[in-house]
């Protein structure tokens, strides 16, 4: 299988997937669609993937993203965690693990593996997702992608640093130079 990684400048693929958003009975699940990625509120999306629920490296990483949830919120950015496990496995894992119980972001279930495949991050042998991270702008365009092999953890600070660099700043007219395009927020 060739995996062609979805790269910078490309439209994030269309999807509709169930995600675990709560441990409360009746409120556990929510369907996330790719439509939500595109918005007029200047809202960005960070989607990060891990290979399998119930493994060791993953909860550390997921907990790290959760700890930085406020940093993403302050940058008008939705955080989505994802793997190819089903929503029921996600829910069981969250119930089972102390660090995962109060997760503030949705855990997306790509049970059919279609999204991981479209993104080009499906590992050939086990058909699980690599540790991929995507930054998607409010137009639904992939602006940054980083893929780690299965055993390599991520640095959340680096994701935030890249996000800061990507998000437009210096909108102030003081920074306009002659001949430059009008700045759009």
């Amino acid at each position: 299988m060739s995996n062609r990684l979805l790269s910078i400048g490309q439209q994030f693929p269309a999807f509709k997937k169930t995600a675990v958003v709560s441990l409360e009975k009746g409120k556990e699940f929510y369907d996330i669609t790719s439509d939500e990625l595109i918005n007029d509120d200047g809202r960005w999306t960070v989607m990060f993937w891990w290979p399998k629920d119930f493994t060791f490296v993953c909860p550390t990483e997921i907990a790290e993203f959760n700890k930085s949830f406020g940093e993403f919120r302050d940058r008008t950015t939705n955080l989505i965690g994802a793997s190819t496990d089903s929503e029921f496995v996600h829910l069981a894992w969250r119930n089972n693990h102390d660090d995962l119980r109060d997760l503030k972001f949705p855990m997306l279930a790509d049970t059919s593996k279609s999204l991981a495949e479209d993104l080009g991050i499906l590992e050939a042998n086990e058909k699980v997702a690599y540790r991929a991270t995507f930054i998607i702008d409010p137009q639904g365009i992939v602006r940054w992608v980083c893929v780690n092999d299965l055993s390599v953890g991520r640095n959340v600070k680096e994701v935030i640093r890249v996000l800061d660099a990507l998000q437009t700043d210096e909108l102030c007219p003081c920074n306009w130079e002659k001949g430059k395009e009008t700045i759009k927020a």
Partner: protein
Amino acid sequence: MEALTYSETTQEFLEFLKVKNDYHTESLDLLEQGKSRYIADLKVNFKNSFESEFLTKTEIALLGVAIAVNANNQTLRQFFTLNAKEEGATAEAIAEAAACASLLSANNILYRFRHFTGKEKYNEIPARIKMNIMGRPVSGKEFFELMSLAVSAVNGCELCVTSHEASLIELGSKEERIFEAVRLASVITSVSKVIY
């Protein structure tokens, strides 16, 4: 009047600033009442100022002390003083940062006046301002110049800004470091408008 409950963004910001639970300011109230997303930007600007390639943690804290003292800002002065101590700054270095803010405030007015009027006569009349602390600064000549530049940039004295910048370049400082110090001063000043 019942106290306004601040958003999570603001509460986390106040926690970071180590202020009391019931802390509030009227400026923050205004932002909160209008659900302004600016608070998130301000907080990100402030927190990002603590990550620098060109300034050490201690230097950031000492520049913070100088800018907070210059702004007469109690909350930020306490925050940066504590921060400076935690980063290992001596009482002497902290004192020097406060002294620098005070002295430069005098110099900024005086030299700005000379520059504004451009009359030779005012350059001939002695300033009669004691500047002994500039002699042998405990934080070193270069860092004292950097603090002086940051305070002068905030107070808007063109002559002081150009002189201290030139002196820093002569001492071998990089433009990136100089800009970072001024950037930090600008961010702390913007925070001082709502946190005080």
